[in-house]
């Protein structure tokens, strides 16, 4: 796994900006308050920790609108659904951000399972096209 770290400000907490693996990628665009996940996530247990850390960091920045772009996310196992849920609950705890989840009808699981995130955060906007 290759991670790109930002060292622009030596006094700032080191920010984890993206995770690149041959099967999956996570990218945090801080300026756009957007996290993009793509590929296939079939990780187990602790392997999701770097992904959760990155998502938590995006939530902790408390932007007015936080976008989770999953349009290129082909596959997500239940541990991954659990990880996204933890992120949504973190946003709910802060109560500072609107969440927009973008999905694609090309991957049928997204229409089936992403709506469950709204059970945790009813104001979450789901945009699957």
């Amino acid at each position, binding site marked *: 796994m290759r991670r790109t770290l930002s060292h622009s400000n030596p006094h700032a907490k080191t920010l984890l900006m993206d995770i690149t693996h041959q099967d999956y990628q996570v990218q945090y665009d801080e300026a756009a308050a957007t996290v993009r996940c793509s590929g296939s996530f079939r990780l*187990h247990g602790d392997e999701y920790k770097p992904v959760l850390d990155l998502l938590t960091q995006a939530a902790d920045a408390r932007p007015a609108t936080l976008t989770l772009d999953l349009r290129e996310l082909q*596959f997500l*196992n239940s541990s991954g659904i659990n990880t996204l849920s933890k992120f949504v*609950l973190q946003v709910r705890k802060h109560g500072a951000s609107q969440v927009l989840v973008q999905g694609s009808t090309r991957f*049928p699981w997204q229409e*089936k*399972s992403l709506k469950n995130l709204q*059970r945790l955060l009813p104001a979450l906007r789901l945009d699957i096209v």
Partner: protein
Amino acid sequence: MAQTFGEFVELLAGDGEYLKIGFHPSSIPLQQRWRNNGLSADFLADYLSTFFPGEDLASAERQSQIKDAVGYIANELLENCMKYSHASKQHLVSIEMFLEPGAITLYTSNGIAPARIEPFQKFIQRLLTEDIDALYTEQLERNAEDDDGRSASGMGFLTMLSDYGVKIAWNFSTPTQPGNEVAVTTMVRMPL
């Protein structure tokens, strides 16, 4: 006497077309086994989709839905087998897929550690008797508070029941000799 939970439908060779894959869970490291889950699940899903040719837009859509569902369910079942199968070599892990005109049925089988049987059966009882949506939300909230990474168990079954409209049932074998371990077979039946 085997113990069953839920409406366990037993299909045998002859009840439609089927495909079975079996392996020893302890013969390769976990990382490699995990990769095999994905490969096996994708293989089952790809293989199945040849029975549903996507000739027009509606059937292409249906093929994509079925392929996606089988890929997800098979992967979750295999992950459970890998996580919970007992380390001894008494039982192979296997996955079987049966295709009938009205349903696709998947079975996985694995040995189970004696200490896991009771908590697993308690959870099965909850899956079979409680409101799935409420249980789903409860489990996610509980997982979020619990950082040890082990609590995600159960989400596979909950997503299958909540999002894929399947029936799930379990069969626990009874060892015929002392020292033999219990094998659990999980059935997931998806109407077509």
